[in-house]
């Protein structure tokens, strides 16, 4: 009886949580746009969500590209195939590592900050006071944050891939001595715009939607105590990371499997 009751309680909690998440998202986004008020708010959020994530994205992209080049070179050189270093690095970055790793970093850097900020606003009753002043907090607080995350992450993923390829160029060409012309031309031969770049962008758009949605929902739905905020922040990072990895498998299966 007890485990059954627990299962039922958890299922009900999951379903009602999903429902609240959809309601938060829809009521934040389904409004007549008001560019005069909305754009300054969006810019402010783009700054704190996007620009502030640039450093971590650029540094980790560079190092991941360099490591890929180093590891790939030591393996490929055994087959005399070091000319394939360029496409190997570019394809792994564009198809998988760029969207996925930047989504994970984004969840840790920006998603947790969004949840904590909104949660603290709720705990200190700023959201309620906005409502008292007849300002819709969903529209004023949640919507710009959602759009900022949704716009930022695909751009960050593109920057991640680009910096990674440049890092791989640094290690592969300047240090290990792969020919620069071979590096680029074989890469251009193997990388296809629709198949690789566009699919990578689609992936990062999906991840941006999921990560930002979880972050704002967890913040808006958190228990308004210091403990509740800490729990909400943790579960933002954990759930969005897991969901990104699971979705990545599904998307890869849809896009690249034959």
């Amino acid at each position, binding site marked *: 009886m007890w485990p059954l009751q627990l299962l039922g309680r958890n299922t009900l909690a999951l379903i009602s949580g999903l429902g609240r998440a959809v309601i938060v998202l829809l009521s934040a986004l389904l409004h007549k746009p008001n560019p005069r008020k909305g754009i*300054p708010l969006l*810019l*402010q959020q*783009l*700054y704190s969500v*996007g*620009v502030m994530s*640039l450093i971590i994205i650029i540094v980790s992209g560079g190092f991941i590209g360099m490591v890929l080049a180093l590891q790939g070179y030591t393996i490929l050189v055994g087959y005399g195939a070091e000319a394939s270093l360029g496409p190997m690095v*570019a394809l792994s970055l*564009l198809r998988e590592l760029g969207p996925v790793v930047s989504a994970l970093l984004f969840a840790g850097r920006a998603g947790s900050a969004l949840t904590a900020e909104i949660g603290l606003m709720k705990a200190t009753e700023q959201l309620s006071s906005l409502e008292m002043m007849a300002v819709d907090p969903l529209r004023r607080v949640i919507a710009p944050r959602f759009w900022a995350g949704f716009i*930022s992450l*695909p*751009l*960050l993923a*593109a*920057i991640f*891939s*680009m*910096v990674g*390829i440049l890092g791989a160029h640094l290690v592969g060409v300047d240090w290990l001595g792969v020919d620069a012309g071979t590096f*680029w031309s074989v*890469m*251009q*031969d193997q*990388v*296809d*715009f629709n198949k*690789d*770049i566009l699919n990578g*962008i689609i992936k990062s758009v999906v991840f941006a939607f999921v990560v930002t949605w979880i972050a704002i929902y967890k913040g808006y739905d958190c228990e308004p105590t210091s403990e509740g905020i800490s729990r909400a922040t943790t579960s933002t990072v954990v759930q969005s990371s897991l969901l990104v990895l699971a979705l990545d498998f599904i998307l890869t299966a849809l896009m690249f499997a034959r």
Partner: protein
Amino acid sequence: MMSKKVELMVGFFVALGIAALLMLSLKVANSGLSGGGDSYNLFAKFDNIGGLKVRSPIKVGGVVVGRVSDISLDEEDYTPVVTMKIYSEYNQFSEATSVAILTAGLLGEQYIGLQPGFMDESLDILQPDDFIEDTKPALVLEELIGQFLFSQGSGDE
């Protein structure tokens, strides 16, 4: 209210993101620009195309003059027909031109090598959608090894 620095930094961030996208699509994938020129089709029938793929390059003496745009089977005799998209600046191939499927390096990608034939008054220039008659099929390594073993065996007796 909105500080100038925030606007500047956001502008920088978005510009960087778009620059990254542009660089990825132009420099990494090399899309659009090179394939956009005018081109015309030539056809060739091969006995065996080996590992030739759509988008494999077509080369004359190492210079890329086009790409394979389609590979299909002839409807009547079931031999492979390769559609070759040749850039229209190279439109002076004579009828004596021959094509072969070659391999870059021992284990590399396969490509089509065009051998421009001699020019003569009795020979016409290949028109768009013409078939090239003189073709050499791809060398299949297993067949070569098989032939080699066979000839070794018969030599001993």
